[in-house]
């Protein structure tokens, strides 16, 4: 599968010397990173590397301890209300209202983005149809399987047609068929000029979808480039090998 295209040059997300402390633990440690408009950026790292903390800061859920982060030229510490109007967030856990139907969950998030009623109805219908979710959408989410909850989780993030999308491990728990279909959907978002930040533990997912990949560990950026560029640089046959080489070496250095 080949999903890549050349992103535009303008930086949509600019992170500079970002730090987030939780007491003695530095979850993010001087992270500096630019993500271009229209780019699908894969943020990779072992568990606890600081991926979710970084996304939480960008979404306004956590305040940075130091450093700056700008989205579309807006400061996440000062203009977060305006930023939230432009972003869609698919969190790591399937955060859905289980007593609501799938459609009600999706439309709720459209209303929270103040979408026009007619536009919301049309977009909700289109989105459900694209995701092959129309039939399940009329049922309460309580009865959904783990994979269906994940799909709904993603659709709720996309209802407002956001310019910038944060996908935090969006395909965990999906079966191979649904995961593949979700990858195709994520790839189609790039054609809509959306900027996407994707964290995942499926390295194959990042390799096939991402224009560029940033690998972080201990809250620091340890390598950055296109998947092909990283594979060449580290003389590896795939991105997983690159990931294991880089993060494995750091573990060995640290021990």
């Amino acid at each position, binding site marked *: 599968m080949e999903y890549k295209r050349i992103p535009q040059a303008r930086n949509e997300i600019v992170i500079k010397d970002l730090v987030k402390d939780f007491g003695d633990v530095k979850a993010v440690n001087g992270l500096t990173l630019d993500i271009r408009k229209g780019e699908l950026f894969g943020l990779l790292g072992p568990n606890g590397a600081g991926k979710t903390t970084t996304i939480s800061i960008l979404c306004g859920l956590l305040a940075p301890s130091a450093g700056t982060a700008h989205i579309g030229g807006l400061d996440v510490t000062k203009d977060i*209300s305006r930023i*939230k109007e432009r972003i869609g*967030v698919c*969190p790591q*856990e399937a*955060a859905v*209202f289980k007593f609501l139907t799938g459609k009600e969950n999706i439309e709720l998030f459209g*209303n*929270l983005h103040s979408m026009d009623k007619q536009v919301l109805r049309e977009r909700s219908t289109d989105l459900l149809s694209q995701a092959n979710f129309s039939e399940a959408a009329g049922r309460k989410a309580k009865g959904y399987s783990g994979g269906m909850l994940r799909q709904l989780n993603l659709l*709720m993030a996309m209802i407002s047609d956001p310019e910038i999308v944060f996908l935090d491990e969006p395909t965990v728990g999906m079966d191979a068929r649904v995961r593949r279909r979700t990858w195709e959907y994520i790839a189609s978002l790039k054609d809509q000029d959306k900027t996407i930040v994707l964290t995942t533990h499926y390295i194959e997912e990042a390799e096939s979808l991402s224009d560029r990949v940033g690998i972080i560990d201990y809250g620091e950026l340890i390598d950055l480039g296109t998947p092909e560029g990283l594979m060449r640089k580290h003389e590896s046959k795939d991105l997983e090998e690159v990931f294991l080489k880089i993060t494995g070496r750091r573990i060995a250095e640290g021990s």
Partner: protein
Amino acid sequence: MKTQKMIALVKVELKKLYRDPTSLAVILLMPVALTVVFYFALGNVPSWGLEGASHFEFLVPGTMGYAVIYMIMLVAMGLCAYREAGLLKRLESTPTSPYEYMGSHIIANLFVGVFQGLVVLLLSVILGFRPQGGLPGLVLASIFLGLLAVTSVGLGLITATIAKSSGAASGLSMIFVIPMMIFGTFLAVFNEMTRTIARFTPNYYVTDALSLIFNGASLSDRIIWQDLLILTIISLVVVVAGIQLFKKTEFR
């Protein structure tokens, strides 16, 4: 504040109540069951506090308020469950302000509180209670119930701030519910000591005012309006404290 967001969130809270059997039991079956039990247990017992009436009739105004105070537990458990499911964080990542979110809780529960109280009243009327005050009295009683619902949401927010889980919220809410149940509802006029203690519970002012309204006092009675003023102040203080505490811990 955007009306569209608030309406959407109010609808979510109302749907939760009628789609979740536990919530439905607490908001509807509990007051109904309590009223029926009181009717059969005390319907023929002369009142300790109201001459010529049964003790069931004497307890109706207090029971109307009592039906509302369990909202403290429901709100606290609901918010903790949302927190556990990651829903509060998710809502925070949308352009919804904490005030829109918590405001929607207050509005939804205000409707529920008035509804619960009126269910008790309707059932009591079916069982022979004859309230005075007419429609103006009913409207005034609904205002008291609404204010008590607002207070209960505030106490629910405070409970949810402290509680780490929905299970803990259920137990912790009893710190508020039990004194309100004992002193504000049943022992409010037992003797001067219990009345003094009862004055520290918000629902005492509901019990007191509704007793006056339904037993034929003039609606311009100074005590009724004094109760309304005190309950308004309590509800404002409690709900503002609840919002501030919950916002501080859950929202940036």
